[in-house]
């Protein structure tokens, strides 16, 4: 490259958000920022506690389980994959930590849980990519298996992950510090979630693997013909999804001082809602982690704000359902499956009548 060319290239180098996003995604992200700002505005005007530092920490802490998993669900869905087993995998991994503490010890148990989570993802990936089973059916089956295993391992009971004997105080204190420790007054789980988002953004934007996720999601056959290792990359995506569920389980268990086979109920739906709301297409090939982060924050802010106003659970569920429908609706419009011709006609007529 000549000096002139490199200067020109440097001059046209995108700045700000455009460094990490495609041009079409910048508008989507800005729309999400506006949506989040509106929710924050409405909630803050109804409760003066909403923007208090303590509540912001609560809000972010409540979103860490969903957020940690959503990073890798986004990557998986960009490659046209789907994982419904993340919540039950997280429950099973938590129970592995709980049951391991009296046998191999707490920290080896944490390692075992991480391996188990990755293994579940690997099996999902193998069944989808090599055996060719539909991702929905594969991960739905895995959902039942891992939830069932969680109950079997725990004998149906919640296991305290707590130093009941007082003999291993240092070990348990270190473990609970995973969730309760702070750096610059920010709890570790929030920092870890942020770190995972940054890692995901770098992976998607700056690595061959990340860019291949878009190509595979867009057209799997063409990707295969172009020489991309489609199966291997999709296996990696499923494995990372399982591993992220295990990481979330470690922090959840540390936070609760307990491992519950019923943990993370319906979290998979919240994750998918956040990811789709964030602009990732259910049809694959599109998506970004800025959008997912905003999707997670929008859902958390909405639920937290409603809780602060003692809004009933039914209305909270309705609000969350409406957000999911909105997200899917936007996705359908984006894919051109919903014809907005009527809407355009209405706008044209409205314009004509004002002239």
């Amino acid at each position: 490259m000549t000096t002139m060319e490199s200067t020109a290239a440097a001059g046209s180098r995108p700045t700000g958000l455009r460094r990490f996003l495609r041009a079409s995604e910048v508008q989507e992200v800005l729309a999400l920022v506006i949506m989040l700002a509106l929710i924050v505005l409405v909630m803050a005007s109804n409760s003066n506690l909403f923007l208090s530092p303590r509540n912001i920490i609560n809000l972010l802490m409540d979103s860490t389980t969903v957020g940690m998993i959503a990073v890798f669900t986004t990557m998986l869905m960009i490659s046209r994959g789907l994982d419904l087993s993340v919540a039950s995998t997280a429950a099973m991994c938590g129970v592995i930590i709980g049951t391991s503490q009296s046998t191999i010890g707490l920290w080896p148990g944490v390692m075992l849980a991480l391996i188990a989570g990755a293994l579940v993802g690997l099996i999902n990936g193998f069944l989808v990519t090599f055996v060719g089973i539909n991702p929905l059916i594969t991960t739905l089956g895995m959902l039942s298996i891992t939830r069932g295993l969680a109950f079997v391992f725990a004998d149906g009971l919640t296991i305290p992950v707590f130093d009941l004997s007082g003999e291993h105080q240092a070990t348990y204190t270190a473990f609970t510090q995973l969730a309760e420790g702070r750096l610059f007054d920010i709890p570790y789980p929030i920092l870890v979630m942020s770190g995972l988002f940054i890692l995901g953004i770098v992976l998607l934007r700056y690595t061959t693997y990340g860019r291949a996720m878009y190509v595979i999601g867009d057209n799997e056959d063409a990707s295969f013909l172009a020489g991309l290792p489609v199966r291997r990359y999709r296996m990696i995506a499923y494995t990372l999804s399982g591993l992220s569920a295990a990481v979330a389980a470690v922090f959840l268990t540390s936070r609760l001082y307990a491992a519950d086979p019923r943990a993370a109920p319906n979290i998979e739906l919240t994750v998918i809602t956040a990811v789709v709301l964030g602009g990732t297409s259910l049809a694959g090939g599109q998506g970004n982690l800025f959008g997912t982060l905003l999707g997670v924050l929008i859902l958390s802010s909405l639920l937290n704000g409603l809780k602060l106003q003692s809004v009933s659970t039914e209305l909270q569920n309705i609000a969350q359902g409406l957000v999911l429908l909105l997200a899917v609706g936007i996705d359908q419009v984006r894919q051109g499956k919903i014809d907005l011709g009527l809407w355009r006609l209405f706008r044209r007529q409205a314009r004509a009548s004002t002239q």
Partner: protein
Amino acid sequence: MNTRRLSAIALGTVVFALVVTMALRGSAVRVLAQDSACPTAKDSYTIGFANLTEDIVFTQLVREGMVATAEEMGNVNLVLADNRLDGATALANTENFITQGVDAIIHFQTDEAFGNVIMARARAAGIPVFAIDIPMPGATFFGADNYYAGQLAGEALAAWVNENWDGQADAMLVLELPQSGPIPAARMQGMEEAFQNNVETPVADDMVFHLDSKNTQEEAFRVVSDTLPAIDEDAKIVAVTINDGTALGTIAAVEAAGRGDNLMVVGQNADPSGQEEMIKENSRYLGATGYFPENYGAQLLPRVIDVLECRPVPPSIYVEHVFISADNVCDYYPDNWPDFCSQ
């Protein structure tokens, strides 16, 4: 004005000033004494109530009772939340309550194991906690006396069998919920042991069937239907069930098999669906132990205020249990069944 008169006025003024000063000082001392004796006492209180779930009748009745009592008391502002049968949600609700500066927390949450972290947060914030049905370390317990509640139903069933089946049943169905842990298990144990200890001829161990009801009517129907072929066609069957719904599922399954006449069931809760079944003619639902969830608020909220105003409260407060059957349902729920109760 002469000097004597001036002196009298001056003296009167000084005396008045002294009296007023003493009175004010005295009241100030009294206020200070009151404050230092009970720093949490206030004119009105904000109390956080996190319900177990909003999806079942029992807990809805608990919430409605809490809200009604708070309105009646006038000095209680109730902040509501739903624990959704989930430990993480219960913890998040605790943190929300602390953010909202509540004076006390009433927690109806799913599992004793989450009590450690919930209580750690509440203790750090200096907020007293009341635990409904599931004990937590350091919280005042309020709720069911599970073993005793089970005993009442088991004894009633044994008395009925002694009177109507010559003291002998051939098989026993125990519709339980293993995954919910030791507290509901105490109910089941109370029912089973009280029946076996009070019936003239206990059911043989190999004819006692422990079935996982999953706490639902549908699952109870399914597991009972699957078990019936293992029991002789003309065997007399008793069933003890974890709640009214599973009792109804059991009755439906046995009646569907055409064996309803050889069945008698007892359960727990005595909610309206159970009451409706027990007042039917020739009902196979003998009755259920009542927990009176609608009265939880009226019994608990005054105790919460007692704690906040530094009056002594026992560490455990048990609800009063009564075995509800067709014979006494009108004494407790006359408004639910006006036609039946007017007979």
